[in-house]
């Protein structure tokens, strides 16, 4: 076990023990943790070895203190640390309130789930450390340094691993499809789409209608803006080709359209 601990490159050599002074807590590098669960595990381990008998409210408080201090120091915290903080604060208040039988799952169950998660992560961390501490080939034990080899013949036996195959495909795809990436990052409602939609929807009803009603519903703001631009251009295009009429009462007033009879 000692060897395992040594090999383990845990960045947290200073476990934040509950009664440590806050200033000492602050010296801990936030980059040392692999996410909020990892940080929680370190806090919990400092509390007790048996993760199922730790005090969750105490743990929550330690975590919240830690986040508070990090913020006071203007350390930049990744969003998931803050999400965890919000969730833990909620959990803590639910645990302190009189229990509400209607609440499902109960705060006690949520707390227990958290403990079980910590326990599982801890088990895997430990297992990883024990693996790394084994007698490893090429470090502790060695194969024959100069094997004579068994194959002497002429016919080629082609070798290729699945990894080679998959990375080759990844290489090809990424090499040949760079344009696709840009398109997917900035969705654009094309002029062709806008013309098609507008000419379909305008139909034959000879009433004046606000151009805005022809806009597709979109939640993405950039996408909606592009739809606005292309729909406007499409209206001009259709007016130019004599398929609809445009009218506007004044600057910035709604643009009205109706099909040409």
């Amino acid at each position, binding site marked *: 076990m000692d060897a395992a601990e040594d090999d383990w490159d845990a960045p947290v050599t200073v476990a934040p023990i509950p009664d440590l002074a806050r200033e000492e807590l602050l010296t801990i590098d936030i980059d040392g943790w692999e996410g909020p669960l990892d940080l929680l595990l370190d806090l919990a381990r400092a509390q007790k070895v048996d993760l199922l008998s730790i005090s969750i409210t105490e743990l929550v408080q330690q975590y919240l203190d830690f986040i508070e201090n990090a913020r006071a120091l203007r350390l930049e915290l990744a969003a998931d640390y803050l999400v965890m903080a919000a969730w833990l604060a909620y959990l803590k208040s639910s645990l302190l309130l009189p229990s509400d039988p209607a609440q499902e799952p109960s705060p006690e169950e949520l707390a227990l789930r958290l403990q*079980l998660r910590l326990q599982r992560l801890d088990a895997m961390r430990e297992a990883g450390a024990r693996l790394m501490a084994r007698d490893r080939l090429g*470090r502790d034990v060695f194969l024959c340094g100069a094997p004579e*080899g068994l194959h002497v013949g002429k016919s080629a036996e082609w070798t290729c691993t699945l990894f080679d195959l998959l990375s080759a495909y990844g290489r090809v795809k990424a090499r040949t499809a760079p344009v696709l990436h840009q398109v997917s990052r900035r969705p654009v409602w094309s002029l062709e789409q806008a013309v098609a939609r507008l000419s379909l929807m305008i139909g034959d009803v000879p009433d004046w209608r606000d151009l805005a009603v022809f806009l597709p519903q979109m939640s993405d703001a950039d996408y909606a803006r592009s739809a606005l631009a292309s729909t406007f251009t499409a209206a001009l295009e259709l007016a130019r080709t004599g398929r609809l009429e445009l009218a506007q009462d004044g600057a910035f007033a709604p643009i009205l359209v109706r099909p040409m009879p």
Partner: protein
Amino acid sequence: MSLPDHLRALEAVLFAADTPMTREAIAAYLGDDIDLRAALSDLQAQYAGHGIELVERAGRWHFQTAPDLAHLLRRESSEPRKLSRAAVETLAIIAYQQPVSRAEIEAIRGVQVAKGTLDVLMEAGWIKPAGRREVPGRPVIYAVTPAFFSHFGLASRRDLPGLSELRAAGLLDPIDLALEALESQALEAVAPDTDMDNRGGDDD
């Protein structure tokens, strides 16, 4: 000091091989009229107490130096590339809980598996994609390779350090299962002889 012919042949083949060999691969050289199982075990016994030993790793056999001589042989150049902590945890999860998908690894670690973590482990030859999980999205699942067992000196999965303890403690089970187990334990402790029908309603 002389060895019987079939052990000499086995010894030479294993010594000359540049990778660990399965029994089938060995048989391709030695023919089928040798009881390989017995021969391997005899040869292994021959080498007991030597500076070289014959070991089995995931069904593959090879000679290697004895672990207690590591201090003599270790050179600066022989230190393998240090794995990141994320890679170590990911490897442990795959080894102990295989086959697992990326999402399952992330659920245990509570963080996304960074780009490159699985890549590093695959490049080392320790993990490989092992089909897909038959659930929505059909995610790829990963498992460890024979090279993993050779590298870490494990005869089989059962040799994984602490595996039986982890299994007995339910630490390899999903959280939902563990939760149910704990709840039923607690209920039995609190109310050992309540009527079963009433209990059914409570622990829903």
